[in-house]
């Protein structure tokens, strides 16, 4: 099926603000669906709440739109109950890294074969630009008018540390690389995670001197470094950079495959009597 056929064209134009990166990431995802010959019937797109949580409205596969932060938990049930499905979980930084942070690290540890795609726009877009778990220190948001005093999560580092077999960070600016990461993540057996650094010109951009839609994307571009060149930076230099590249790419037996052994053992015990 063609990428365009995975989109619900009757719902266009997209609900997102002018210059928001969500549409770019969504477009990349459906291009990957085409490349991997996914079908509408064997694919489930799971979302939480937030701007990116509206992504399922425009995707023409099975969809499950749940609650804020819990998309991965719904996705875990969907996948474990039917391991044949391609389960793709879309989360924002509020969803995936803040209210749902605990689910994220446990999903990575549990290694259920789902793909998570987090669009990280560094703030809560839907509710008006308040700070999230990834808002960088010193930046201004609608709830940190005097400068944000907390440090944002290095999400990809976090998920890699939690044991996910595939973790990569790209940006909307580097859309070709991002699409490649999404494709690899979808192909990976086990929990895969792609973080897309994205722009929110309406809120984050406006409050941080980048009110033109392209302004924040330009800032992302200028502050991006590769994983290899980031190794030469000091900790404080690294903190203000978007480190793009792969954080993990390894083989690891996924939950459903391992559970087949549990079933085998359990049946042996059952057949052996009480």
């Amino acid at each position, binding site marked *: 099926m063609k990428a365009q056929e995975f*989109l619900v064209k009757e719902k*266009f*134009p*997209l609900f*997102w*603000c*002018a*210059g*928001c*990166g*969500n*549409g*770019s990431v*969504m*477009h*990349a995802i459906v291009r990957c669906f085409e490349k991997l010959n996914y079908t509408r019937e064997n694919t489930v797109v799971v979302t939480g709440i937030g701007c990116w949580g509206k992504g399922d409205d425009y995707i023409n596969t099975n969809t499950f739109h749940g609650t804020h932060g819990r998309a991965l938990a719904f996705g875990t049930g969907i996948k474990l109950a039917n391991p044949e499905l391609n389960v793709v979980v879309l989360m924002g930084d509020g969803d995936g890294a803040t209210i749902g942070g605990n689910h994220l690290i446990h999903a990575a540890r549990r290694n259920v074969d789902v793909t998570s795609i987090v669009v990280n726009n560094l703030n809560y877009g839907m509710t008006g630009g308040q700070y999230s778990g990834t808002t960088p220190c010193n930046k201004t948001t609608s709830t940190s008018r005097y400068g944000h005093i907390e440090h944002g999560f290095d999400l990809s580092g976090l998920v890699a540390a939690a044991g996910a077999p595939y973790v990569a960070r790209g940006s*909307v*600016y580097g*859309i*070709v690389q991002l*699409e490649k990461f999404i494709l690899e993540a979808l192909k990976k057996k086990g929990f895969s995670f792609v973080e897309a650094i994205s722009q929110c*010109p309406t809120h984050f951009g406006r409050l941080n001197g980048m009110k*033109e*839609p*392209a302004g924040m*994307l*330009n800032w992302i571009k200028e502050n991006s470094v590769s994983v290899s060149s980031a190794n030469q930076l000091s900790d404080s230099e690294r903190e203000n950079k978007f480190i793009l590249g792969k954080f993990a790419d390894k083989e690891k037996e996924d939950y459903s495959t391992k559970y087949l052994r549990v079933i085998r053992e359990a049946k042996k015990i059952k057949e052996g009597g009480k």
Partner: protein
Amino acid sequence: MWKVEVNEKLCKRCGICSTFCPVKVFTCEIDGLPVHTYQEKCTGCNLCVLRCPDIALTLTGGKEQ
């Protein structure tokens, strides 16, 4: 020749396509709608289509042999 078509109904005039075009093929109308003006410079790199947040652009045509 490459041609970038802009779907006026979908385009939100964000300017990302024209700002980041490596060879600056776009001009903008008064309301911000991008126009693929310098068609002859276009290399068909497709980055504008890929980055467009509104899935409003399509690239057609190709290099004349």
